[in-house]
């Protein structure tokens, strides 16, 4: 303990290392991911990925299919364990303290899975109970989530009778129940009609003011519509990182699609 802190840091860690020191730093990022790697057998799905998301930031996660976006999100939410690397949510390690870290996260999985035999309200009540809410707090949380996601019309309906858009929003409502500091949304606008897409983007933008949001998408225009920062992932690595304006500037042509096509591997080329 006699080792001076500064010297210690200089020798062992880089000055920009957000993980230096065991104590939680109040200004550190809400989502911190460092050197995250996931291997499935011999296949590397995520390769030494590092990024962080601050409070009030909406990070768009772009990339071709199979780039490792969903795998990264599943690791960040604690659903699958990483092969190596560190993940911290609000300063709590997901790997060492999964139960504690998961309390801060709301997660919308890609397929928007739901219990089909329940009603929308019943399912949200279950979600709230699992999050440790009870009594009037539970009731208020369910009502707020229904209101936020415009589910009033289907609140009493059985989930297996819902259209895809309503299913998605029910699953999104589930992620908002406990008013989490961190939201992880895997393709939140997938399968929605243009009106619904617009609503969800507005919602993400609004929620992003007070939370840290990580969301993945294939739709490049969403980057400008909802993100404050975006990264493009390809074969498990971040290839571009910047604000939407920086990304557009970087493309040279003013089109995000061109940039996306420049930096990512296409299925046709990856065989080589």
């Amino acid at each position: 303990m006699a080792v001076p802190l500064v010297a210690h840091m200089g020798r062992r860690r880089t000055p920009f290392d957000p993980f230096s020191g065991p104590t939680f730093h109040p200004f550190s990022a809400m989502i911190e991911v460092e050197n995250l790697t996931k291997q499935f057998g011999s296949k590397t799905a995520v390769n030494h990925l590092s990024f962080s998301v601050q409070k009030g930031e909406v990070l768009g996660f772009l990339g071709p299919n199979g780039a490792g976006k969903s795998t990264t999100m599943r690791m960040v939410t604690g659903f699958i364990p990483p092969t190596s690397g560190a993940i911290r949510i609000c300063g709590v390690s997901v790997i060492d303290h999964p139960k504690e870290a998961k309390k801060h996260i709301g997660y919308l999985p890609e397929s928007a899975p739901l219990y089909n035999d329940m009603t929308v309200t019943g399912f949200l009540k279950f979600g709230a109970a699992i999050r440790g809410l009870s009594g009037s707090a539970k009731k208020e949380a369910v009502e707020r989530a229904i209101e936020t996601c415009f589910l009033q019309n289907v609140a009493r309906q059985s989930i297996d009778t819902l259209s895809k858009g309503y299913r998605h929003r029910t699953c999104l409502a589930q992620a908002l129940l406990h008013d989490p500091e961190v939201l992880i949304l895997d393709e939140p606008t997938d399968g929605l009609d243009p009106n619904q897409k617009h609503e969800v983007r507005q919602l993400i933008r609004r929620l992003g003011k007070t939370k840290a949001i990580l969301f993945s998408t294939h739709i490049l225009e969403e980057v400008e519509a909802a993100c404050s920062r975006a990264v493009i992932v390809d074969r498990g690595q971040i290839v571009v990182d910047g604000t939407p304006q920086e990304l557009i500037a970087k493309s040279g042509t003013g089109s995000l699609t061109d940039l996306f096509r420049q930096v990512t591997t296409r299925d046709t080329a990856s065989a080589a």
Partner: protein
Amino acid sequence: MKDVWTIYKRELASYFSQPIAYAIIVIFLLLAMVFTFTLGNFIEAGDASLTYSFFLYLPFILMVLVPAVGMRLISEELRSGTLELVGTYPISLWAVIVGKFKAAATVWLLAIALTFPIWITVNWLGEPDNLAILSGYIGATLLACTFLAITLLVSAFTRDQVICLIVSSAICIGLVFATFDPFVRQYSKTLAPDVKDAITSLGVWDHYLSLARGAFRLQDFVWFASIILASLFGTSAILSAKRA
């Protein structure tokens, strides 16, 4: 503990919001009574006991009907992807497994309890040993829980409920028939008595029938508890391995 309760309530509600639990309970009651009054000779035997008229036939019914209740336990979560939701909730996997198991066990507890008219009948007609009957009911419940735990373990392997039903029924049928007395008498002719005893004590009958006769033996509870606990731990291990 509260997490187990939340999962349990949801599961139980889902059983009774769908026809499956009702259908299986009705089929179970019908079959149990059919066996009792035909093969079991309940009336003709004139014996104020349920051991050989009623309890003897339950394993044959439970070995196929219990997997039908349990087949959806994990398979359904795997198929619909809800395990990904549950896996990101701040609860342990163990709470999910135990909660789901208890809910399915409750369905069976109810089904077995609903055979109570036969208990009333036997008390009406004669003077049975009610403690032995209680012991038989405990045995039947433990047997249902054992088959259920096996089904739970199988359901963690597959997202296909039909495969789960077939495989877990096959295992339960194997456990029942491999040590069914007429079969044992056939194949044990060439075996040493010790080997025969060892095989018999692995199967259902030795443990179940001793309870059905009203005998509380430690080895029977160890047999039931070890299969149930091993299956629950196995389920947890498989689900953890699947995620990695």
